[in-house]
Every structure is written in C-alpha cells, then in structure tokens.
C-alpha cells in the first residue's frame, strides 16, 4: 500500500535548491547514458559542460544562447504565475521575427540610427499581435490557451517558410530559402570584435529588472500573484480578470517577439527557415527551472544554454547527434518535476497487511 499525501509546509530554501538537485541528477543521468554508449562518463560530461565554455569565444556563445532563452522565459513567467498556460512562445518568437525581419527588409537601403529601434519595436509588436490570438480567444470565447497557442506555432513556422521561399526570398540568392542579408544599420551592435555576443543582452537584462519591478513592487504583480494562487480570490477582490489575461499575454508575446528580432538582427542577420532552435519551447523549461523568479531564470537560462553548446561540442568530439542536447533538456525537466513532486507530496509506505495477501 502506497499513499501520497500533500506536505503542509515547504521550506523556501529547499524550494530554490531543488532545481540545483535536478541539475545534478541530470548530470548523473547523462553520465549513465554516456556510459551505456561506451564513453567514459566523466570525459564525456567534460566535453559537454566544460569544454564549450573554457575559452572566451565559448563564454560569448553561452551568452548568445542564454539571451533569448532568458528573455522568453521572463515573459512566460508572467503567464505561468497567473495561471495562463502560454506554450506558444516559439510561434510568437517566429512571428516577431517575421514582422521585425519584414521591416528590416523594408529598410534595406536605409541607413540611420533609427532603423534598428524601429525593427526591434516592430518585432515586439509582432510577438504581441501573435500572443493576442490565444489571449482574446481565451477571454471572449473560453478556448483553451494551451491548444491555441501551441497550434499557432505551426502557423507561424509555415508562414515563415512561405515567405522565405516565396515573396521575401533573396532575388540574388539562387533560390535558397532565405532573405537578403540585412543592412549594417539593421543589425544589433556587436559588443566585442570577433565574438558574436551582441547588444540584445542589454534588452534581456533591462527586461529582467523591469519584470522584477512589476512582479514584486506593483499592483499588477500583486494581481498576477493572487490570480495564480486562487482565481476565486482574484474575482472576489475585484481584479479585472480579462484585462489581466490580455496584459500577461502581451508581456510574454512582447518578450518572445523581442527574442526573435534579437536573433535575426543579431547572430543571424537575415530570415531563413530555422531562425530558432526551439528557443520558445526550451524557455518553458528555463522558466520552471528558474522557479518563475527573474533572478532564478537568469541562472537557469545559462545552464540550459550550456546544453545547446555542449551538444554541439559533443557532436564534434564524440560523434553523438546534437539532439543529445534535447535529451539533457528533457532530463532537467523530468528531474525537476520529479523532485517537485516529492517536495510538495510525501509518499507513505503503509506495508501490506496479512489479510490482504
């Protein structure tokens, strides 16, 4: 007989320590997988988690990957904290990229300081626009935002596909599915010569600060917190539930859109089919690993970004597919959810009784 009981009080420090535990369990699980594959687990893990960041270029790459992950996860934390399950950040990212990229192409022959800010804002606007679809359907037609936002990811992907193959493809590009390279004034400034780290990181850092301010110091943040804990209480307190759903979707759409436009104006420099290696989905893991807390999300984004880099290194040195990175991301989520379950519930073994045998 096994019985599951809810724990009454969960220590706050352990609550923030379990993600760390999940990461160690992931390393352990990863070691076992490498061992089964015939590698020396310690060596393999070193290739995965240490080699990629052992030089300056590696560290810069880490930040390049962490920048969009952190940004999207911060946006998602607004939704998740208030019980709105937006899992379509990938679509909002792509649509933000499409709108931002479209504007960048429009300014193809323009130079000027104003070009980049306009592109960035239009990217955020694109993300908001796309996030509004599940938000409005949820508030006015009671649809399930999980389904709608997820399905819209494929709409955005196919739309991008169509644009880069068809109307927006590079006229001098030999029919490759990509647009022109954006002009210099439409690119994020590079911070250091020879490294890919770009000014997008400042957008992320400013967003982290603003979201901390909003979540913990404003009436909106208070409403989000209460709604996340009890919708009945939110209604009783007279919070405008519908307005809040719209606002949190706007924030998370804007963040995803910014991440998208940051990618295409930063490291990529054009639109093509794969502008995001599923950052929008991976950011869900980042958000939960960071406990929906702005500071936690910064750390979580660095760790998850490392799995992207590690996968690439492992592909080169160990000849394992780069999808191992996703295996690690999956393991992180698995172990996090597992340890959360044990954190919030206790399992009692009651022992079998004679007359039951």
């Amino acid at each position: 007989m096994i019985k599951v009981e809810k724990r009454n009080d969960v220590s706050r420090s352990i609550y923030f320590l379990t993600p760390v535990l999940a990461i160690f369990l992931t390393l352990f699980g990863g070691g076992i997988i490498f061992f089964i594959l015939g590698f020396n687990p310690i060596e393999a893990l070193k290739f995965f988690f240490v080699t990629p960041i052992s030089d300056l270029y590696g560290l810069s790459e880490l930040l390049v990957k962490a920048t969009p992950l952190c940004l999207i996860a911060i946006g998602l934390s607004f939704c998740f904290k208030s019980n709105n399950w937006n899992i379509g950040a990938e679509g909002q990212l792509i649509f933000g990229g499409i709108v931002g990229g479209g504007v960048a192409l429009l300014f193809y022959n323009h130079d000027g300081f104003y070009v980049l800010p306009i592109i960035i804002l239009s990217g955020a606007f694109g993300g908001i626009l796309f996030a509004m679809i599940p938000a409005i359907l949820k508030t006015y037609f009671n649809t399930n935002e999980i389904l709608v936002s997820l399905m819209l990811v494929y709409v955005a992907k196919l739309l991008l596909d169509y644009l880069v193959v068809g109307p927006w493809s590079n006229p001098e590009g030999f029919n490759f599915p990509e647009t022109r390279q954006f002009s210099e004034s439409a690119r994020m400034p590079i911070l250091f010569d020879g490294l890919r780290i770009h000014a997008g990181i400042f957008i992320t850092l400013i967003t982290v600060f603003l979201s901390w301010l909003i979540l913990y110091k404003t009436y909106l943040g208070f409403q989000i917190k209460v709604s996340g804990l009890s919708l009945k209480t939110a209604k009783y307190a007279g919070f405008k539930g519908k307005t809040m759903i719209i606002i949190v979707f706007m924030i998370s759409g804007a963040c995803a859109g910014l991440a998208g436009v940051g990618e295409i104006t930063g490291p990529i420099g054009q639109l093509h089919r794969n502008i995001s290696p599923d950052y929008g989905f991976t950011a869900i893991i980042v958000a939960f690993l960071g406990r929906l807390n702005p500071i936690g999300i910064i750390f979580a984004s660095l760790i998850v970004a490392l799995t992207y880099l590690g996968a690439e290194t492992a592909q080169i040195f160990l000849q394992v597919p780069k999808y191992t990175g996703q295996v690690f991301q999956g393991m992180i989520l698995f172990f996090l959810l597992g340890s959360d379950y044990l954190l919030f519930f206790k399992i009692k073994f009651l022992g079998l009784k004679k007359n039951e045998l």
Partner: protein
Amino acid sequence: MNTKLKVSEISKIYPGCIANDKVSLEFGSGKIYALLGENGAGKSTLVKILSGVVKPDDGEVFLNNESIKLNSPLDAKKNNIGMVFQHFNLFETLSVFENLSIDSDKKDEELRELVNDILKKYNFKIDLDIPVLNLSAGQKQKVEIIRCLIRNPKVLIMDEPTSVLTEQETDDLFISLKQFSKDGILIIYITHKLKEVLSLCDEVAVMRKGKVVSVSNTIDEKIESLANKMVGENLNTIKKKINNFKNSEEILKISNLNFNSDDPYETNLNNLNLSLKKGECLGIAGISGNGQNELFQILSGEIITEGTSIMFRNKEIGKLNPRERREYLMAFSPEDRISQAAVPELKIYENVALNNFKSSNFFEKGLVNEKKIKEHSKKILSNFSVNTDNVELKSQFLSGGNLQKLIIGRELITSPELLVCFNPTWGLDVGAINYIHETLIQINEQGKSSILISTDNDELLKLSDRICVIYKGKLSKIMNADTVTAEKLGILMGGGSID
C-alpha cells in the same frame, strides 16, 4: 445481540497537535452515545480511527472484549462498524440501487430484496431506480445509512449528520436512529449541537483538546452544563436587542432581481426583492445550495447584474465589480475563507491588501505601498485580537478562528456601511464564534448594516433584526426576528409555508 465497543488509551499525535490524548471510552449496544466537542477537540480523529481511516499511534480498540486492528476502512467493514460521513460519498448520476450495489458482493436480486426489507422495516420512502442527484439531502443520507445497514452493522457512527438536514428531516433521522438502537445497533453520534445531544442521546462523552473531559447520562445534563464542559469556560450568552428600524434610512434595495445561470450546478434566482435599513441586520436562512452562493456573489459583485436592480445608498451598483463596490463602502466576507476570502500561501499583510480600493491607498500609482499595508495589517491584528502580531506570517499558519477574525477585521477596518457575510462562523470553535458574533452586533450598534447569510439557525436568531429564508432561489417573506422561531425557519427551509 449484545455489542460492546471499547477504546483504550488511544493516542494520535499530529505535528504540532495532540489530536487524541489517551482516550478511553466504553460503549454498549442499546444506547445512543453522543461524542460532543468543539472543532479540533479530537472527535473526528477518534471516529476516523474507529472507521479505519486513521491509524492510532498508541492504544487499542476492543470489540466484544477482543482486540481488533483497524488498518483500513475495509477492516472496519469486516468488523461490522458502519460509518456515515458528513459529506456523502455517492455517485450523483447513478441510481440509488447502483450506488448500493457498487460495494456489495451480493447478487442484484438478493440485494434488492434485502434493501426492500430495510426500506419497509424503517419506513424509508426512496425510489431505488432514480439517480441520486434527484434526491434531497435527507434522502441521500438515508441511502448512506442503508448502505451501512446492508452489512448488518453492530456499530453505526454518524458524523455530524444533521448539518445538511431540515428540521423535519432531522426529526425523521432521530426516529430512525432510535429504532436502530432498539434493534441492538450501537450508535455513536458525533456533533457539536447541544440540543441534539439532549433530545437524542442516552450518554454523552465530552472531548476537549484531545482528551475526554466528562462522560455522563444526558438526563443529568442541561444545555448550559454541556456547553460549559465543551468550552471549558463560562459562556456569557449574548443576545441582541431588537430595534425598530421603521424610521431609519434605507441603505440597500434589491428589486425584481433575476439570475439565470448556464451552469447546471448553480441555482437560478427568481424575482428577489429586499431592502435593508441603516443599522439593521438582515438574516437569510436556508439549507446550503438553495442559492446562497449566487446571492452572495450578486451582492459582492462577483456576478454582475442589471445596474438598476441593486441600489446602494441611492446609487445603482448592479454593474460594479467587488472592488468598485468597496469604493461605496460595502464589505464582503465569503463563506470559503481558505480558498476565496484569503489565500493561505500569502502572508498576512498580502491578504490584507486584497481589500483594496482607491481610498485605501495600498497601491499608489500602480506601486505597492508596503509600509501602509503593513501598518494597516498591524492595526487589524491588534484590534481584532488575532493571536499573532507578525504580519509576515503566512496565513496558512492561522487557525480557522484567527483567519476569520483577520478577514472580518480586514473588511471592517475601513468602516463600511454594509457588511455582507456568508456563514462567518462555519467550522469555528465556540470562543471564536462568540467573538465574531459580538463583532457583528457591535457594527449594528454603530449604525452600520449587515446581511448575514447563514445555515446556522441559532446564529441567525441571535444576530438578525429581520429574517427571511431562501429556498430554491426564492426568498420567503421577510419577518421580524422576534416573531420567528427555529421551527418556523425549519418549515420554510424545507420548502413548506407558514400561515
């Protein structure tokens, strides 16, 4: 058939509280035993131990001088101990007979014959082939009782069985219970209603703070003596003096209000009319589920209606949400204090911030004014004698009584003109109940009005100036409290009519 049940030195310790402290009691068949105690006195724990739901840390249970192990509800059934819980465990969409056959190993025809015998013997009138959802609460309870009777119980435990019943249904239940007792079934009756103990039971064991404090024959007891044993202190009974509000200013008027819900589990409200004078307390009685929830939400603004249907101090407020209504000095204390009126995971001061409106200045220009909220919270904690002064404490660590004081305090500290409360003392111990009652009387004395929606008739009779009954979404005539008796209320609550 003589049954003797004995619990010996039973102890059960939960983290931070001793639920049962060496409880020893003896019961014998042919009598009805009352187990009396406040909430948290330990009676539920003891009953759960007897029904196999909870395992004791120490002590033994003897049935007919034989020690028995009760590790699961199944063990209790095997030992012929039957239990009827306060909340019914029935499948609403299945028929009565299907519900009975689920946990019976008898063949259908055999079972039907047995059930029909039971129905005939105890004069129960229940159609076995209609879905349970069409039954009244009293009938559902009978189904639960029949479910126990099928197994030929030696012991039948009833856990606060009358909380959902009308007065008439309660009378019926008592007749049945006496009959069972005559047939040799040992009956243990758990309650905190003193009158029931006196009218039904032969012996009464009083529990307080996990211990048995007294065992006596009910003939030797009076309501006052039992109440004193239960609470452990002399209660000074409060009774409100009835005022005449003929010439007072009208503060709230609801006219021809209808509410039709899309949700089949909600009750529609038909043609509600009521008015409330300044300083008056209007009591609304009724059995739960007759539209009280919907009425409360309509008053609080959680359900929005026609603007003109609700007038508060001559303003149309029907379309306003709860926050906007608070601006007009209305305050609300919902029934569900744990998941609606307050959030257990939030700190005390955060829960205080829920009662927010423009003039409270808790949030200025969209920013949290933590200092102001905390100051305000401190004031509530001391003015309403909540037993902590730590505003950073999470509300889940407050007992029910202290949480309710915090909620009432939060609602009242803004000096509202009208307080709407819904079962404000539900599940609280006598001390907290008294405190809340005194507070509610006090606000009326200060010229503030209140609407008290409650399923506790004693509370209504004690606090209201005028009383009406809600039944199936309709309000009865509003009566002056001094002309109302518990019996009259019972008739109206059960859908009957008086004069």
